């Protein structure tokens, strides 16, 4: 295989002038059996890429909603290996939809970079976003990832300087992830004008697709952010449903699908997009 599924996926979306919808859920939340069927349901509801959170005991960049998701998943000892296993299971029925693992470095470090990259790639993982691994610390890791067809996904933040944007874009592949606000996942309101300005600044350096996440909580924010970005990542708004229905796991899928579908139609009817491009 040459390259991951991410580039063809985004090329395709671009050709159709569609904005990618990327749901984030924590693998193993609220229990392991929920995850793979949920991934299929999300694709059905219009997800273009799936971000699968790898639970970690110390999720420093996450707000309370995703912290608790990690805690629920860890109550079942959902490990990085288990998450890779879920992707493998998902691939039995879905060969197209790119899957990105999102998490923290330590579980990968313990497994070993080489071993992780081989197993993840073999299972059908396409990209890896390790929140606490900036490009400065990632040199060796990037070589290992790219020789295994895994795209390293890096973050850009409102505080990222122009110099660093250049640096991040020069090593990123798949897409870059713009964190739309100063804060943790699930935090307050995002400033759409600020996002639009930053998109221009990033696009001055790169052609790589830009996904925007943190703070996308409903169809309306999804549509307005989607009008200026290549992808919207929605996390806490979905994970909230896992919390709300944690003791009735059978109901979660319906709730998550409802949120995603409303975002999908808002994105698709976002006429502003065509105009602004």
């Amino acid at each position: 295989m040459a390259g991951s599924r991410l580039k063809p996926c985004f090329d395709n979306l671009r050709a159709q002038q569609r904005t990618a919808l990327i749901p984030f859920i924590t693998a193993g939340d609220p229990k392991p059996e929920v995850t793979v069927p949920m991934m299929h349901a999300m694709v059905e509801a219009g997800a273009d890429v799936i971000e699968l959170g790898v639970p970690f005991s110390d999720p420093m960049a996450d707000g309370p909603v995703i912290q608790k998701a990690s805690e629920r998943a860890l109550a079942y000892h959902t490990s990085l290996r288990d998450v890779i296993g879920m992707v493998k299971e998902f691939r039995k029925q879905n060969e197209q939809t790119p899957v990105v693992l999102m998490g923290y470095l330590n579980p990968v470090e313990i497994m070993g970079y080489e071993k992780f990259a081989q197993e993840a790639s073999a299972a059908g993982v396409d990209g890896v976003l390790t929140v606490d691994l900036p490009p400065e610390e990632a040199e060796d890791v990037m070589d290992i990832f790219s020789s295994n067809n895994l795209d390293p996904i890096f973050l850009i933040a409102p505080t990222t300087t122009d110099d660093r944007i250049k640096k991040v874009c020069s090593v990123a592949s798949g897409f870059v992830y713009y964190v739309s606000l100063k804060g943790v996942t699930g935090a307050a309101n995002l400033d759409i004008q600020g996002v639009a300005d930053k998109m221009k600044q990033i696009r001055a350096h790169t052609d790589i697709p830009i996904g925007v996440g943190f703070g996308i909580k409903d169809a309306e924010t999804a549509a307005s952010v989607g009008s200026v970005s290549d992808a919207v990542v929605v996390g806490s708004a979905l994970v909230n449903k896992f919390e709300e229905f944690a003791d009735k796991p059978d109901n979660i899928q319906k709730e998550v699908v409802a949120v995603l579908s409303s975002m999908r139609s808002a994105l698709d009817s976002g006429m502003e997009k065509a105009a602004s491009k």
Partner: protein
Amino acid sequence: MNQKSAFDYSQYNLPDTSGHFGPYGGRFVSETLMAALEELREAYEHYLKDPAFLKELDDTLANYVGRPSPLYHAERWSRELGGAQIYLKREDLNHTGAHKINNTVGQAMLARYMGKKRIIAETGAGQHGVASATVAARFGMECVVYMGAEDIQRQASNVFRMKLLGAKVVPVTSGSKTLKDALNEAMRDWVTNVDNTFYIIGTVAGPHPYPAMVRDFQAVIGREAKEQCMAQTGKLPDALVACVGGGSNAIGLFYPFLADKDVAIYGVEAAGSGIETGKHAAPLCAGEPGVLHGNRTYLMEDKDGQIIETHSISAGLDYPGVGPEHAWLKDTERASYVAVTDDEALDAFHALTLIEGIIPALESSHALAYAKKLAPTMKKDQVIVVNLSGRGDKDIHTVAAREGITL
């Protein structure tokens, strides 16, 4: 001797420019903080050479903290142990009763010079929280302290002290509700309020430049000890002993001696109920390398890389990681890391109290417990300097409860 121990400490200048001590240290944080850490590194490197800053720091350490702290020859205890002469570096006599204030004074001054008006801190036992609240009061800054909900229960009097000092104490209910979770929460605050907020980390952990910066603020301990030891004994000590939680009091003592290769260095971790029980807080003795709280170092973790709970009678040593410089000192064999149990620490706590009339902190009692084992193996004209990192008043309730006494 393996190859690593050939590392040359006579020219020691770590960390490198990107904050690494060999494979350890570094800057493993989310992108939002990268600019703030760069700003902090620049400010710290600038002001540590700025005469006005250094003069104000020296004045504050002398007249507010009460430095230099004495180096005290524990003659009776040394005689009783029948070996090397034990000298205690009396950080317990500092304002607020521990070494922690050396660092909070330095960082709060840096915050002020950088124009940040709000400081945040994490705390476990409450010692660093109290030291942060103290300097915030002294410099007229807003102060928010994150503390695990469990620890708030265990350390009620320190919580009240912080409140008296005008700080806001925020209970942390995520994860294990202890120090590591307080650190996570402080990081989350910092990411959110990065424009106006200065995060005072309490030990030599965290992303670059914290491990180097906190070390530099604590190194006053070792510089003084070196001079005092020369003045009192006419020579350098033969051994240094300090307890290691995150490792700030230890590195503060060790750092100025790293190039003195005849000085043996011992860091003492908390073995809790015993290393073999798994209930301990000894990442250097029984953990393995990983990445947590912004740096690569030895950690207590399970096979999946999840951080596990620690156990120690001393809240200040109850941390699953350790400063990255200690990881490097261990691998290169410049320092030896050992561990003593809760019971051994309690024994030493009582011994020093009864024999020298000094009530040591339970953290420091770990260093004393190891000195107690080490001294009899050495000659009477040899010298051990033990870092008495704090006083034990805060711990009397813990000791009483442990011994079944109701106060």
